[in-house]
């Protein structure tokens, strides 16, 4: 049986979406290349002044889906 998903745990599609979003707009650089996905989500949440949870919550997911400029938000 599939185990019930914990609240805030991204589905595999959500995980791929958030990773693709972070890779594009919050790319990893020399200084940040060891950051976990949770830390990277936190970085994004801080930039957008969202509640910093490190999880792909509804607010974060909604932000990712909004139309936006194609330039990165955090650059080295």
């Amino acid at each position, binding site marked *: 049986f599939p185990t019930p998903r914990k609240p805030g745990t991204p589905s595999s599609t959500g995980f791929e979406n958030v990773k693709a979003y972070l890779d594009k*707009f919050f790319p990893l650089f020399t200084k940040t290349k060891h950051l976990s996905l949770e830390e990277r989500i936190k970085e994004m949440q801080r*930039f*957008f*002044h969202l509640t910093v949870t490190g999880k792909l919550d509804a607010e974060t997911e909604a*932000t990712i*889906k*909004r*139309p*936006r*400029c*194609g*330039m*990165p*938000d955090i*650059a*080295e």
Partner: protein
Amino acid sequence: YATFSGSPRWKKTLLTYKIVNYTPDLSQKKVDDAIRRAFMVWSDVTPLQFKKVFYGHADIVIGFARRAHGDGYPFDGRGNTLAHAFAPGEGIGGDTHFDDDEIWSETNREINLFLVAAHEFGHSLGLDHSNVRGALMYPIYSYVNPATFKLSEDDRRGIQKLYGKKPS
């Protein structure tokens, strides 16, 4: 506000721009007008002036494109990424590309071209994204009435840091 790494900026105040193609969503006149007004957002608060050219070299080359369009940064279909622009510099520097899978408008329906163009030209002039909600350089699209649009203090400080104030 933020500027790009190394704070690249144009070393002249008269910049040329060229529109190499148009979206089918709006008449050419409406595109021209949206682009002209988007540049005015920045020329109103700095010594910068913008001149449209129709052939030959232009500092800022503007076009509409779908998916991969030759710059290594393909667009992604309708939604999400709307446009992108390059920081000041020779060649592709300053150039601005709009995703033509979006539906562009002059109103609050779909995506307002003037608002996105004004944001992208901020990049063309050297501004990076701001994390101030309500600033033009905030990366997420949000409609405001173009007729009453006012550049935020954050954007004004950023662009005047690069180019100074408009002479009185």
